[in-house]
């Protein structure tokens, strides 16, 4: 924890590092490491600001969102992987915090609905088009009919 705080203080660019005192609730600051910051920003877009109205913590002005952004950066700076950070938030806030809903007993219908609609629609269209593609097979004429047809062709007036 102290290690994370030191890293965070380093990232704050603040001149006097006041390590002895707890860090004041400072506004969010990018991490100095560009790769780590890019990872943090990608994660921020996947986490929901739990007091906001459907916004990610990456696009919210709420104070809680700023706190959550700081937590994301803290954990990334501490060397945690993306999955671990996600899991950390999920353990605290539940599935609600994940904007990318995990495939669970509660969400399988959500994830399967789009492919199901596409499959049903495709099947419906194929069924609807099928009779047009293959005209109904015509039974062959029997001998009597053939004879009558030949007569009709020769003498249309009959």
């Amino acid at each position, binding site marked *: 924890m102290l290690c994370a705080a030191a890293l965070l203080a380093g990232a704050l*660019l603040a001149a006097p590092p006041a390590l002895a005192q707890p860090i004041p609730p400072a506004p969010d600051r*990018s991490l100095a490491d560009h790769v780590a910051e890019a990872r943090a920003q990608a994660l921020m877009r996947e986490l929901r600001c739990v007091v906001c109205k*459907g916004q990610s913590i990456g696009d919210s002005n709420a104070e809680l969102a700023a706190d959550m952004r700081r937590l994301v950066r803290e954990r990334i700076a501490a060397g945690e992987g993306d999955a671990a950070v996600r899991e950390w938030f999920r353990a605290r806030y*539940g599935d609600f915090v994940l904007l990318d809903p995990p495939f669970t007993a509660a969400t399988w219908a959500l994830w399967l609905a789009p492919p199901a609609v596409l499959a049903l629609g495709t099947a419906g269209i194929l069924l609807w088009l099928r009779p047009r593609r293959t005209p109904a097979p015509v039974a062959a004429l029997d001998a009597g009919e053939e004879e009558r047809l030949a007569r009709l062709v020769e003498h249309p007036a009959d």
Partner: protein
Amino acid sequence: MIAELGHFALILALCVACAQATVPLLGAAWGEARLMELARPAAHAQLAMVALAFAALTNAYVTGDFSVAVVAQNSHSAQPLLYRVSAVWGNHEGSLVLWVLILAVFGAAVAGFGRNLPPALAARTLAVQAMIGAAFLAFILATSNPFARAFPAPAEGMSLNPLLQDPGLAFHPPLLYGGYVGLSIVFSFAVAALLEGRIDAAWSRWVRPWTLAAWVCLTAGIALGSWWAYYELGWGGWWYWDQVENASFMPWLVATALLHSAIVVERRDALKSWTVLLAILGFSLSLLGTFLVRSGVLTSVHTFASDPGRGLFILLMLVVAIGGSLALYAWRAPKLSPGGLFAPVSREGAVVLNNLLLCTGAATVFVGTLYPLALEVVGGGRVSVGPPFFAGTFVPLMVPLAVAVAVGPLLAWKRADLGGALGRLGAAAGIAGAVAVATLWIAVGDKVWGAVGLALAAWLAAGVATELAGRLRMARASGAGLGRRLAALPAGEWGMALAHLGLAVAIVGMTASSLWERGHVGALRAGESMTVAGYTVALRGVAEVAGPNYTAARGQFDVAVGGRPLMTLLPERRHYHTAGDQTTTEAAIRTRPLGDLYVVLGEPDGQGAWTVRVHFRPMVSALWAGALMMVLGGLASLADRRLRVGAPSRRRRVAQAAAPTA
């Protein structure tokens, strides 16, 4: 006094709408011309009454009559005139009055332009239109009276939400409602056709321009809303897959599908029953959007009202309108005569594919928007469905659609040669491949999706060019020069090319701005700087400035590239003292050749430093440019002479009438 007049006008409008909803319908059923005739004057009278009410409400806002409750809640005497007017529809009650006003305008337009419609079809359409109007007017009068007085009247109003005090958002609701209501006309035509039990040439000729007009309004409204979110919310995002955004996006997807299937009905007399279903679905989704936004079911930035009584009323309306029209469809649609036949590989077949993908897309957005609500209702817990879900489900549906958009217009009606069409697209495939390779070579970060997006855009643009070139080559037989041949192309042809090209341009914007965004947040004191995407942004200082109803901290930032000074940016942090001390950020945005530089001034830390966010959004302007091209394409198509088949005969009649006096 004027407010009471407005209230009475609304009540009269409801009475007129009730008469218009019933008498012409009976007239059409009994073949009584005089009863059918009532529809036209009633539509005009309804417009007059609603316009009077709207004018009375606007008057209350403009003059600052704070004894009217909604004015006191949403306006302030220091608010600039534009925002005193836009405050009329910046709240629940007023936005409904705007809804019925646009509904009445469209209804009167059908009555006015539709003189050459078959009388029974016109009477039934106007009657159905009046049913929708009556339902909304009753809703306003029963649950959301905009003219209710506040007693005692406050001396000053509480001001419009500062986020809404913006030109973009002043025009966003009227355009969006124009789209929703335009779809209501198409819905009325569809229900009228089901009542008649037949769909003929007159029907399809009438439905397409109204669909097109609604689609143009919806496209412009959604783009304007997205643009507003981009510059006003201060984060540079342009689409959040927010439930309210989705509520307007679903009707757009279905309207786009309808726009294409209506062409098939008009040209080929096929897909009639399906088009009627799309017309019903399009307006049902508009109603659903209204329900989601107005009932307070959702809690989102856009929601102004939350009142369960209102929610129940709209839900009832939804059930009657959607359930009733779908029941009518199930009963009557099988009686519609089947239309022209076509092979799967044909222009019609391409439209069917378009409809399949767009409707699946709409269903995906529908499920993603309502699933969390439904799950909570059944006690299944709370989940969030956000951008990653839609990126994983919706975007993959749009990729094959964009591929097909280039091919569809090259196919012939009835039966087409797919190999020939693909052969003509050889050059387009080459260009797309080259773009993909170049993207993989140059780009950093998410290369694969970037290559897919840009290659799709190139494929689509080259496909449009191929199609236009083919048209011109065909016209060469006439021996006219290139200029003449270009001018001789029908406006609808230009419209389609422009709209499809707009899609390609928008894809570039979406891909680049979402995949290659750069951003940095830091604290800056005067004299310090940060560098993002090669732009060095230095804070010179922060000054206090005063606006009409706010005070602002205005940062002055000097931007330089490679040590060379480039420009000064002035983002603001506004403090609206009239609106409960709300703070908004006004980002400073400058469009550069490769993208937008986006600078936001955040909060001060009290020790001389300010939080500053700098974003670079590559090619985001292409998104707005693409949307604008789609709108212009729609307008060009609307101007096509072929859509006004009835017009010459009327002009001739006018000419004949004028001749004797001349």
